[in-house]
């Protein structure tokens, strides 16, 4: 299956799933290869919800056994992350109670507090800086490791092997004033000791975070489902509050498009606005994935960067690739540039990302060459 056909198949699955999960339109799933299913699920991260939706409507077998196996496998990975995140939240609740701190769970974690099964890669919580520092210290005492990158909005993420990461936010810069979120947060019914944002703040954080902070993943089904759930569970006053914030926002059009698609009320123009970049994203990531399948070019690029420029350059490359262009850097020059001319820092980050892609292309090519030579090397030579 060509890369283009695989991306096209994955995108067709997205259109189908979007109609199924958000608009309640039941149609036959598009016929495509399991690889396209895999790409679609990696993009949209809605395997558990889609699997349950198909089961409940008695159509699990409609997608065929191979696709069903891919879906089941993705759903199991998502569920493992859900359980892992849930265990991290329980620990945070225990620590928050010990230090009498107000710890507010953000984004996907809120759905977990309510018993949902929404996939998430990390647990985001907000507290004031002293409380966040104290929480971090307690996690460190319990043997949590820290990533070497921080950001203006959160401390260095903490993690233990086999668990999702914890991000301790001290600010919601770029989204909204965090003081207001902390002040109006409500105790969680799901896990005692934790708080959740007010319904309006929760919708707003989900909406602006997935639209402004991550423009590269606008329209992801997992985010749309979260926004939809947040909206439908909010009281009318909360919805009106969000409506008023939208009216005053300078990116109102894209935010309204995101909300409209999530609620199934988007106009054709709003749907086009949200969807216009999605096929290109599918194609781009299919190409990058094809490059990085064997060997792991991404790891090799990191290693190459580490050898050439040390850990600071490796971190910088990873931040350029994975985080916001405004995230803090471990390289003083980059930070100085960001403080004086933010535009240049962002440009440098974009250039770093592009260089990373080209390095990945080069390493993947060398990797393929290495793969062709591999049979000439005897097995014992490769053991040690």
């Amino acid at each position, binding site marked *: 299956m060509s890369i283009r056909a695989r991306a096209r198949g994955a995108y067709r699955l997205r259109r189908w799933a979007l109609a199924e999960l958000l608009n309640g339109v039941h149609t036959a799933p598009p016929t495509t290869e399991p690889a396209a299913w895999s790409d679609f699920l990696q993009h949209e991260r809605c395997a558990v919800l889609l699997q349950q939706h198909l089961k*409940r409507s008695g159509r699990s077998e409609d997608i065929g056994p191979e696709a069903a196996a891919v879906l089941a496998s993705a759903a199991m990975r998502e569920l*493992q992350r*859900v*359980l*892992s995140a*849930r265990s991290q939240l329980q620990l945070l609740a225990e620590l928050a109670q010990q230090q009498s701190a107000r710890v507010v769970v953000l984004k996907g974690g809120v759905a977990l507090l309510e*018993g949902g*099964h929404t996939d998430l890669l990390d647990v985001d919580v907000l507290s004031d800086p002293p409380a966040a520092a104290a929480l971090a210290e307690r996690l460190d005492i319990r043997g949590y490791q820290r990533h070497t990158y921080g950001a203006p909005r959160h401390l260095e993420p903490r993690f233990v092997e086999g668990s999702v990461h914890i991000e301790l936010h001290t600010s919601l810069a770029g989204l909204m004033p965090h003081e207001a979120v902390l002040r109006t947060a409500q105790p969680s019914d799901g896990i005692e000791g934790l708080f959740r944002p007010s319904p309006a703040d929760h919708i707003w954080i989900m909406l602006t975070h997935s639209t402004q902070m991550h423009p590269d993943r606008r329209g992801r089904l997992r985010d749309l489902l979260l926004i939809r759930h947040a909206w439908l569970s909010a009281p009318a006053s909360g919805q009106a509050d969000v409506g008023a914030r939208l009216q005053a926002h300078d990116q109102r059009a894209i935010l309204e498009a995101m909300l409209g698609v999530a609620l199934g009320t988007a106009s054709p123009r709003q749907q086009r606005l949200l969807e216009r970049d999605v096929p290109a994203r599918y194609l781009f990531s299919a190409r990058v994935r094809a490059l990085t399948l064997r060997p792991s070019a991404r790891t090799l690029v990191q290693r190459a960067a580490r050898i050439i420029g040390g850990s600071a350059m490796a971190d910088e490359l990873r931040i350029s690739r994975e985080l916001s262009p405004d995230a803090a850097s471990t390289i003083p020059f980059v930070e100085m540039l960001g403080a004086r001319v933010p535009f240049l820092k962002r440009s440098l980050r974009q250039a770093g990302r592009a260089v990373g892609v080209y390095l990945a292309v080069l390493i993947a090519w060398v990797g393929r060459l290495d793969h062709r030579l591999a049979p000439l090397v005897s097995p014992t030579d490769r053991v040690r």
Partner: protein
Amino acid sequence: MMVNRIMTQNKTVLAAHLDGETVLLHMDSKRYFRLNATAQRIWQLLEQKLDTDAIVEALTTEFEVTADDARAAVVALVADLKQHSLSPS
């Protein structure tokens, strides 16, 4: 769209219940376990602190199974759960 709640009384085990299966996480060992539909139902009855007789009775009512087979399934599952320190309460 949300699905079933996560709930267990054993503080070292977390369970996610879906339609037809349950996934368990043992928080200390960080290992995951999967229960099929029958085991899921037994787990849920164990969570309600029912004894073996009550669980067998419930299973024979809900499934086409004899009391002996139901009892054997319950005993086997409880033994498996104990072996992995996964008992629900």
